[in-house]
């Protein structure tokens, strides 16, 4: 019997990637040449063989639904369980719940129907290769009510400012969850607890006018709950701003990062049937990640190129992220740019951003 089910809760994730999140949620933002942010947590959940995974999403879910389909890419198109996309569909006239408790209250059936006894909760902004089964075992060993996941970072980055911190004692018991910016234990937006306890707490907190489960039930009640900290040690990036998106995209060009994210376990994504990439005679590519379906005749340097991009002769791309199906015409120049899908840049145009503040081109523009 499968003991685990999963929840991906997008309620806390602000769509703050400017043009990239005008029409899609952060979870659906394309990343690393061929993925979307949600692929990473879904792939981690797939490896842990969860009974079912519910996705709580409030708005801008069109591109996400298109991407996820029936969950087949993550082996979640199951007869029993599998992937459930749960946008708001709230018809209970007696419902007084607020915040993300609304999702839980209105989807109690999702939890009750599953036979799994434990629920893993996660967001999508933290990209990891998390071993959920190991965390689950740790949770059982510790005999904790809740186990939260944290990463101890050597060097704090600007994007870490928005993350909560997990303070632990020498036995990894959590003694504080807060926002002190100089603390190095980042909370990875992921915790596990027993389903029965979770449902009991949901009921109680709605009755008491609370609104956010993690803040109001776990963080505020840390003295009444036994909370364990699970230290995650693998690849980690947090994407919660345009700058962090850009920086972490280009940092994948460092082999250490690329290997630690991709080499051990495959990351699954929606399959596209593109031909392999063609490099023409005049192609000049270095230090770049390139997906399939591209035709490259120009120069590409320190960049991340998504599927089906065409770089024509004489075009030059440096320090940029170019998403699906963009066409860069002859002799165009691009530097420090994030280009969303389906952009056509005509001949001889020059687009230059700043390396700390990349220039973003919205989806489907023609320049």
């Amino acid at each position, binding site marked *: 019997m499968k003991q685990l089910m999963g929840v991906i809760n997008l309620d806390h994730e602000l769509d703050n990637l400017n043009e990239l999140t005008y029409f899609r949620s952060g979870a659906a933002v394309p990343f690393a040449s061929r993925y979307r942010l949600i692929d990473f947590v879904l792939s981690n959940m797939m490896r842990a063989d969860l009974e079912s995974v519910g996705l709580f999403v409030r708005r801008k879910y069109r591109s996400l639904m298109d991407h996820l389909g029936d969950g087949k890419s993550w082996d979640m198109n199951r007869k029993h369980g599998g992937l459930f996309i749960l946008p708001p569909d709230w018809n209970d006239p007696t419902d007084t719940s607020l915040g993300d408790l609304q999702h839980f209250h209105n989807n109690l059936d999702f939890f009750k129907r599953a036979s799994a006894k434990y629920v893993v909760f996660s967001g999508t902004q933290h990209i990891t290769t998390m071993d959920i089964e190991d965390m689950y075992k740790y949770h059982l060993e510790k005999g904790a009510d809740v186990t939260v996941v944290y990463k101890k970072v050597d060097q704090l980055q600007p994007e870490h400012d928005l993350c909560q911190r997990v303070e632990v004692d020498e036995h990894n018991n959590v003694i504080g969850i807060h926002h002190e910016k100089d603390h190095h234990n980042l909370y990875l937006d992921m915790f596990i607890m027993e389903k029965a306890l979770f449902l009991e707490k949901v009921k109680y907190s709605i009755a008491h006018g609370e609104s956010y489960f993690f803040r109001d039930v776990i963080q505020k009640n840390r003295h009444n709950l036994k909370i364990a900290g699970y230290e995650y040690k693998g690849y980690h990036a947090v994407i919660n701003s345009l700058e962090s998106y850009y920086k972490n995209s280009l940092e994948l060009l460092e082999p250490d990062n690329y290997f630690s994210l991709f080499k051990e376990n495959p990351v699954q994504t929606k399959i596209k049937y593109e031909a392999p990439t063609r490099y023409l005679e005049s192609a000049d590519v270095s230090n770049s*990640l390139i997906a399939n379906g591209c035709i490259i005749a120009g120069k590409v340097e320190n960049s991340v190129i998504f599927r089906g991009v065409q770089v024509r002769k004489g075009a030059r791309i440096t320090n940029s992220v170019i998403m699906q199906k963009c066409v860069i015409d002859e002799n165009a120049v691009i530097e420090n740019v994030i280009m969303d899908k389906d952009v056509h840049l005509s001949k001889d145009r020059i687009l230059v951003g700043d390396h700390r503040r990349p220039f973003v081109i919205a989806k489907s523009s023609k320049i």
Partner: protein
Amino acid sequence: MKKKEMVAMLLAGGQGKRLKSLTKSLAKPAVYFGGTYRIIDFPLSNCTNSGIDTVGVLTQYEPLVLHSYIGVGNDWDLNRKNGGVFVLPPHERENGSSWYRGTADAIYRNLKFVDQFDPEHVLILSGDHIYKMDYNAMLQYHKERNADCTISVIDVPLEEASRFGILNTDEDLKIYEFDEKPSKPKSTLASMGVYIFKWDVLRKYLLEDGENALSSHDFGKDIIPMMVENNNSLFAYPFEGYWRDVGTVNSLWEANMDLLCDNPPLNLNDPNWRIYTRNPNQPAQYVAPGAKVSSCIVNEGCIVHGEVNHSVLFYGVEVGEGSVITDSVIMPKVKIGKNVRIHKAIISENIVIEDNMDIGIERENEDDILLIDKKSKKKKPIAAKTI
């Protein structure tokens, strides 16, 4: 089963001996091509793109890879409620068991399969060729002429014609003679091994041929000559476009090389005629600083530090620093060390090439393509590079 206008039968049981070790443990249609495909992807994708949703795949020689590759056919959109893809290996019957004795016999033994769909026409395909073709256009041609059989033909150079089955036709392309590999070809119309038959006509011939102990049970040698002899109406359907038989190591290499010019004769990037294949789901390819990649096809999961020129890299290939690869085909998951030189070779799947190896640099015959497999490494050690 729901009635179908046309059912496709894909002959995929051949060994392809001339591909040497490439077909040691898999059937020829499962041989890799073009950086990500297997040969069978081409006829299967052509079926899907032509709107044919019922395909029987006849397997026999080393079918394990092929069977698991095809699966339920979802990669070619052939996982259908009515129809879809069916793998049809030889099976035991009431009156005994034997292998498929020839191409026609393979269909003869699956009469029941075809009959289920009560089709008007049957399309016979082979899993040996690289081409993009609209079978539906051919069906229209076949129907317009009310033909009993339509054979797709391609114009070949006269000097090569004796390698093919040659069709002699009158002016309106009605076939009056079929010459299997003639020493003195009378025409240059070569059969591509793509046939459309009226099912009721073919069925009759198959029943007759199946009982004939002297027959070799082959479409080219038996069924079609017999139909010509009996004055059935057979037409040639002229195909224009890229078509290659990849039955030998050299021709497989050449067809791969055909993809590498700036405007290749076979466009694999056409969104209106995609070639579907099983996606190995690898991360994006990484081209390192100092690498040089030009006139190449490179698949995802590759990591290139060296120089790759005019070559095809399948998924998961690694090329170390200082290595130079030219005019070669590198199959999936090959790991190439540092300062290796490879020229005009096909490197089989999963091979590890140690640092400083030279492959194909000094060769006896410039025209021969070196095929490197697990055995060739052990048998004749490749000379270490001497500078």
